């Protein structure tokens, strides 16, 4: 029964471990907004949507020109509603809407509504540098000095463990501590059983 409960618990935990979060941001026309390490600039608009107060032969569409940039990429272009920009890992940026919906008499002050999704998030929202300290980065859950990190080396993780790199990741520390506690409890139990048998 307990084993079954444990299995159910473990299955229930899987989606929580891979939980994604989405955040909505709004960029007024002609403005740039910073989000984490991204810069998002809403610089032009083409809006042929049928104004809500008139009858039209076609419902029309809207395109927003949005430039997204970070340290390595700078991509701008027309985005229609629902378009997803995936070039800025780990984020995917979706144009949710361009507001307000037009009316025939006034030119609106447009706002682009974007939804930024990050597939796996750390709940504490700290950056690698905040967790590992200045000059360090996090690789496979372990903090290492950024000078030693080589992306192209698949054995990097093992090499670093073998060379005695400091393990400062809290998850690894918890696992080691639990493992140690289990060992101690096992020893006590074995010792108690042996003592009983002797009696």
């Amino acid at each position, binding site marked *: 029964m307990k084993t079954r409960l444990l299995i159910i618990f473990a299955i229930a935990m899987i989606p929580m471990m891979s939980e994604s979060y989405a955040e909505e941001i709004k960029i007024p026309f002609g403005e740039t907004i910073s989000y984490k390490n991204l810069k998002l600039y809403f610089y032009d608009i083409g809006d042929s949507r049928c104004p*809500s107060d008139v009858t039209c032969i076609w419902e029309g569409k809207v395109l927003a020109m949005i430039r997204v940039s970070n340290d390595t990429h700078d991509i701008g272009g027309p985005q229609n509603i629902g378009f997803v920009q995936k070039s800025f890992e780990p984020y995917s940026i979706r144009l949710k809407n361009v507001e307000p919906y037009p009316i025939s008499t006034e030119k609106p002050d447009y706002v682009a509504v974007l939804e930024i999704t990050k597939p796996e998030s750390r709940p504490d929202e700290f950056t690698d540098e905040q967790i590992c300290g200045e000059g360090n980065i996090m690789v496979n859950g372990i903090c290492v000095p950024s000078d030693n990190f080589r992306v192209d080396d698949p054995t990097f993780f093992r090499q670093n463990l073998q060379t005695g790199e400091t393990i400062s990741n809290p998850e690894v520390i918890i696992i080691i501590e639990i493992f140690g506690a289990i060992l101690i409890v096992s020893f006590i139990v074995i010792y108690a059983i042996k003592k009983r048998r002797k009696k």
Partner: protein
Amino acid sequence: MKIDSPTVSAVVAVGVLCVFAVIFAVFGNITHDLSSNNIQEKTDAETLSEINQLGLLYQKNKDVEKFEKQMKLMQEEQKVVTPRYLGINISEIYIKEKWNFPFMEPSDVVIHNPELIKPVCKIPENIPYHLQNIRQSEMFQIFAEKYSQHHIMIDISDERYAGGLIHYTIITTSENESFTASTNFHLDSCTGEMKWSNNLSCKDTRNDEHMYTAIKSEIYSSLENKEFCNIKLESWHQDLRIYQIKISDELHKLTQEKVPINSDGNQSHRYFLDFKKLGLLLDITRHYESSVLDTEKLQEDLKEYDRIFGSLPDELLELLEQIK
């Protein structure tokens, strides 16, 4: 004949009394009518508001059964209230969850649309007042004159997200159900001011063919002819409509293509400019079709087109020349 002064006094006194009696009878009745109308309007407004409030509450609590009951109640109440203010029989009220029931609180509309410049107000409380404004409009009167004996449906929808407006659609169906005729009224949710009330749409339900106009002369001639609903466009309008269809088709075709996103930006910029050009042309033709030309938006569209693309295409200029 000699009339003595007491007789004159008596006649004058009786005359004065009669005048007072007439004044009292006429104005007393009017004021009585006005006050009873006001009480009725207030009661109707309160009833509609209460039904809506409960609808919001049940929606929030996800109480489906009670919510649906409330929606039905709103439909029944509107069926009673609308004829009272429009002065015609209403056969059907169109109510659908999320479309027009329940109406959001103004504060929630603002939360969902923080960029709204115009203030937004409550809907249910204002329905009786709005219906009275609609009744006074010329468009409603000529529409009701032709169609009041037919099946009439009302659809009140929330468009406060676009300029703080409330949209009232009045749709009528022919007896054989082959045609529909409809007209829309947009009223400011706060002031009750009517915007752009002149429009008529005709639909042949057998082939889904749809015609519409916002030109007063065309509306009148359509409503005066014996056919259930048949809009005949004037020649300049017909030409403009053909041009508009051509632009719409080009724009529609463009939007079917994959939007190019690339780092150099040239291809995507070209695509966007084509989209923008066609979009502005479409918008400009829509303005000329609407018969209200002196709008800020038309002037800005024309200025923007001129700034980016130069003068308007010759084909459109010729069409606009016909309108003048």
